[in-house]
């Protein structure tokens, strides 16, 4: 048995759909909240994940600097970088399309799928990079630069995997307009953040 209650229009935002629609926070003096709840959630997540990478990177900077020896990336890393950048661009394009059409259309869906595909390809490519290093005899224990290469790329990879899971969840829900409108922006923000982190990591691993 469930009681259905009509929510007055002015507070609908707070209650819309299982109590947690966006647009609550009317306590804010100006009326609405700063940003939609899902977007806020992801920005905060980015802050937390950012702190994780900040901690690992500062350790890497100090240690690699002390040892004075950096790692020559296996060439495939540059290919992977291009693929990741491409995924972000394509996802951005898909976002733009959905923003204009309000819904996934076949064209934006193809772009979206392409972005997910690029993400997977990036992860495979990273495994390839590790394989190349291992072939060269450069292991986790070989040097601090190698150790931090493995650690930082693994940490990044795990978060990319999380991003792929989120994108796939969105794919499964592609026909549900409300879910897409609520989550496409935030998930894409997270994805672009991981692309930025990737460039930061490449730079940090070359610092000496």
């Amino acid at each position, binding site marked *: 048995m469930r009681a*259905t*209650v009509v929510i007055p229009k002015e507070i*609908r935002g707070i209650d*819309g759909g*299982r109590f947690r629609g966006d647009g*609550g926070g*009317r306590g804010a003096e100006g009326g609405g909240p700063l940003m939609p709840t899902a977007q806020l*959630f992801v920005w905060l997540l980015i802050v937390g994940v950012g702190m994780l990478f900040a*901690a690992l990177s500062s350790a890497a900077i100090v240690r690699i600097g002390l040892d004075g020896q950096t790692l020559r990336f296996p060439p495939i890393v540059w290919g992977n970088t291009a693929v990741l950048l491409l995924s972000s661009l394509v996802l951005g394009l898909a976002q733009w399309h959905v923003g204009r059409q309000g819904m996934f259309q076949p064209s934006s869906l193809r772009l979206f799928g392409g972005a997910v595909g690029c993400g997977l390809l990036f992860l495979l490519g990273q495994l390839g990079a590790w394989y190349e290093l291992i072939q060269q005899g450069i292991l986790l224990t070989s040097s601090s630069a190698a150790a931090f290469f493995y*650690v930082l790329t693994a940490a990044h990879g795990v978060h990319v995997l999380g991003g792929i899971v989120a994108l796939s969840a969105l794919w499964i829900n592609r026909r549900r307009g409300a879910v897409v409108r609520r989550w496409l922006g935030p998930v894409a923000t997270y994805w672009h953040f991981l692309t930025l982190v990737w460039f930061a990591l490449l730079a940090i691993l070359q610092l000496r």
Partner: protein
Amino acid sequence: MATQPTAATVHQEPTSFWRRYIFSMDHKVIAIQYMITAGLMGIIGLVMSWLMRMPLTWPGESIPIAAKIFPGLFEGGVLRPDAYLAMMTMHGTLMVFFFLTAILLGGFGNLLIPLQCGARDMAFPFVNMLSYWVFLLSCLIMLASLFVTGGAAAAGWTAYPPLSAVAAAVPGSGLGQTLWLIAMAVFIVSSVMGGLNYITTVLNLRTQGMSMMRLPLTVWALFVAAIIGLLAFPALFAGAVLLLLDRHLGTSFYLDHIVVGGQHLAREGGNPLLWQHLFWFLGHPEVYILILPPMGIVSEIIANNARKPIFAYRAMVYSIIAIGFLSFIVWGHHMFVSGMNIWLSAAFTLTTLIIAVPSAVKTFNWLGTLWRGKLRFPTPMLFAIGFVSTFVTGGLTGIFLGNPTIDIQLHDTYFVVAHFHIVMATSAVFGVFAGVYYWFPKMFGRLMSERLGKLHFWLTFLGMYGIFFPMHYLGFMGMPRRYYGFGLLQYLAPDTQAIQLFITISAFITGAAQLLFLYNLVWSLWRGKRAEANPWQANTLEWQAPSPPPHGNWGEHMPVVYRWAYDYSVPGASQDFIPQTVPLEQEPTGEHRRAAVAAPELSGNGEAHRNGG
């Protein structure tokens, strides 16, 4: 529902037992789950502390009863040295993370944030539920480490390498330490999931009229504590990952030229200081995660029982924020003796002394709130005042320790143990007790017994001072912490043993007093006096909902807020309290003090106008 935007089901109450009480997404049920689990972890931690007292009080003497209950830890009736180290490590870990952090953020955060903000639930109920279950998993992993070969981790709650990095170092450095690290990592995942929810909910789900500067101080404190956690915990996660790699995959992030058992480990170039930085970058903010929420709880209870607005609300908010910020730049005060550039230690001294300022502002404001109030002394108020007392005692010793010249002498002695137990084991725990007595009627619709509560307070208050105050003297005399015994190196005057005995007796009495609390909890659940709707005549929103609040908290209509939470004893009002939901046309407000005193009706209109817009 998406197709029917004007109608939403408010009472989507899950009907099956499992969905309602076990896999519940209701913030109030999750709060109680957190409280019960954290409470059990606290009880386990308490028993461990008794075990630790045994070799310190009666070195080498056999204690048959204890040996019978914990045969695995004793040998010949005496607690084994490795068991002592494991107990010490697990006691600290359980108390800091699995009891206090969990009960304050997971318990009170879940209970109070949606209710006091005027939300129907957390922003992401599913993530909230997940946070509890992941927390429970981390508890189980941590407890499992007690039963593996070699026993639980033994490197202290701070887990410094190399002790924590080299499996051959001591028995507890084996599987026990690995499980410790994994449990901590899982715990961190859970607390990040919780924290994201608390912050989002405070920012985005406040009800109409509830501006940030109208939030009760409890919510402010929990909000800032959650932000601290989100920023600080990842550093420990990073540290734990690197330590696991050092332990199991042969890296040397923390290790350099280690010799264990006559064998030289092939590890070079690492530095144990890296761990100390990563650990204390979390560790110090963590102690403020544990003190801010009690500060909020205490502010609420003191204002309510002094029947006065909290003194200098804005200063309280700003000092919470200042403490939150400063807590990130003082961590080096835990490392003065670890080898630190003298200018750097001067900088950390400076920041450490500065953080005492907002702490003192808060203390003065509590005193200012009490000053000439119409004081009532129910149990929550006793614990709140006890909090202020112990926070002053413990805060002052912190200032001593913040000076390297003194700290080099006192570091790793019982003086430090005294300092942090008076702020954490006493102040923060008093905040928890105050909160449980105060919000028990909200959670269960019944009041706890005042008679038992007061007895519990006095025994605990005197007992805690009895335990921890003498430890300052032991510290002065040079007694190091984390020592099982001194053997032939005994250099402390023999009569210090009398102090040890006094401490241990106090500890047993205080521990036993907690049975009163437990009995009171259980008795009151069924037999407690039924609470009226607003038993403390309080202003905050949670008392506008039924007790216990239904699923969705507010029934059909969301509450609308017209004033701050501290309209107590407003001149010209019909009662000495005015709930936040009372419109300004009905009652005056003291929110904007000067305007209100000068022309109550004018300020009232101005407010109403602003809200209407």
